[in-house]
């Protein structure tokens, strides 16, 4: 379980996150949505420890991680970044194995157990056949799956993702989110994923948290959060909300008038 209390972050003198309160339970997928520059990425980065926080507490299963070393924190929290500017010369296998870093000494010597964990992670994302390929030889969707495998190999209770679907086409977006949800359920992972696409968030997230101007304005089920009133005030545009023909979750259509 991930519990964020009174989290505030500053870039220089500018406050970019105000007093964020958020809880994500084990086995749950929470989508973080909001306009560009609202603070989604900053929230993900501050939880993972690459952006220093001004005040607040970040708890993973009752342990405050803000005082942990990078290595200890990486045993609790894994991050799936966007697959941009990957160093091309590494192979898929080398990349996935780097997920074991928090458990290795500074020389990075891996044991057969580390290799087994990485191999399993690659199997889970259906990338076992790619192990010998270099990262620049595979497609964007495959790269993103390998980065997910690397995060799974980190073997953490918490999984954070920063817009993992951005550079993927629709079928790959759906595949990746299905995979993430399956992993969350099977391994009882706590998943917080920043997403741009409101409909994908609605389809796959158990709950949705909306960030605007560094404030967490609302968190709840898709039905509670994706209403035309809330979305109009957050995105400053007219939207229509209809029900998904199969599942009934809200779908968002921009108004044209």
């Amino acid at each position, binding site marked *: 379980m991930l519990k964020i209390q009174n989290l505030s972050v500053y870039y220089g003198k500018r406050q970019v996150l105000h007093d964020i309160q958020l809880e994500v339970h084990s086995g749950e997928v929470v989508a973080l949505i909001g306009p560009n520059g609202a603070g989604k990425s900053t929230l993900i980065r501050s939880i993972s420890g690459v952006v220093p926080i001004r005040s607040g507490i970040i708890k993973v299963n009752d342990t405050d991680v803000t005082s942990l070393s*990078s*290595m200890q924190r990486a045993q609790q929290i894994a991050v799936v*970044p966007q697959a941009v500017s990957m160093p*091309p*010369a590494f192979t898929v296998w080398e990349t996935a194995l780097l997920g074991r*870093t928090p458990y290795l000494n500074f020389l990075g010597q891996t044991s057969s157990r580390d290799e087994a964990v990485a191999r399993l992670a690659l199997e889970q994302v259906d990338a076992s056949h790619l192990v010998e390929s270099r990262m620049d030889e595979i497609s964007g969707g495959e790269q993103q799956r390998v980065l997910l495998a690397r995060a799974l190999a980190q073997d953490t209770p918490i999984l954070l993702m920063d817009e993992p679907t951005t550079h993927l086409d629709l079928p790959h977006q759906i595949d990746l989110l299905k995979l993430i949800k399956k992993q969350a359920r099977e391994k009882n992972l706590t998943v917080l994923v920043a997403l741009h696409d409101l409909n994908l968030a609605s389809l796959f997230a158990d709950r949705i948290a909306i960030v605007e101007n560094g404030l967490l304005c609302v968190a709840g089920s898709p039905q509670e959060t994706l209403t035309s009133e809330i979305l109009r005030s957050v995105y400053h545009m007219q939207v229509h909300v209809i029900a998904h023909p199969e599942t009934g979750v809200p779908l968002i259509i921009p108004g044209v008038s």
Partner: protein
Amino acid sequence: MRRATYISSFVILFFALLLSIAIGSVFLSPAEIWNTLIGRGAEISASILWKIRLPRTVLVVLTGSALGISGASYQGLFRNPLADPYLIGVASGAGLGAVIALSIQWPYSFWGLLIVPLAAFMTALLTVSIVYAIARIGHTVPTTNLILAGVAVSSFATSLTSFLMLRSTDEMRRALGWLLGGSIQNGWTSILAILPFLCIGVGVLLMSGHALNLLQFGDDQAQQLGLNVTRTRTIILVAASLVTATAVSFSGIIGFVGLIVPHLMRMWVGADYRRLLPLSLISGASILLFADVISRVVLAPQEIPVGIVTALAGAPFFLWVLRRSKNQGYW
């Protein structure tokens, strides 16, 4: 596969060593070398071997391996395949420090000699910090920025060096030849003076392979995977600069070895720095040995500074890499 790579790089090194010991104004055959090494050779051969050929060969080995491994480390640290101790100005910075130390006291004693690599280390560190601070965007250093900042800072350091030399005595001016990459010939003394620094620096770099692998994914990802990025970067930067500075102290500024060697190794074994660093160490020695042999024979009996040989081979290579990296981002 992995073992075969190491074995073949050691075989190449062995031949380079043999060539370097054998070739000179007097040719020593492998049999003569062997006999002399085990104490059964002619007196004249023994004198040439122990007083001239071996000290020079060992100094070249140390310099070449230092340039190879520090080049690989800088490339990993800056995430840029064109980083090279020479191109980013560290070598010129180290040269300036060495000349300052030499102009204060031309070293006759062993302890006087120890000051030279230390001074070179200080100015090397200063230079690389300035270049990095100017050229960086976040923690990545774009090629154009890196080369421009390197050129500017290194010109500045070189001008200061020339100024110091012009003001100094005739004896000092001999150092000009040394700066171009002709090593100071004083037998085993300079080797003893650089060995401790080199061992420390190279030792640290050899342990940094895994950290450099992580840094290739960018600082955010490296930290999210558990690396203490700031501390690791500082340690590697200091170690690489120490290694460069010691190499420059007694062998002068030798360009492009730190660029060529890691590149060739990367084409051979891939991008894993845990293999790249030791192989750049070994092959840096081999390549500089070959260059040194060429510098001895091409205008024999006269010698040309080895820096000229490496630049003649290295500059076209640099242009090729530049063109290649323009098309592919970076390796």
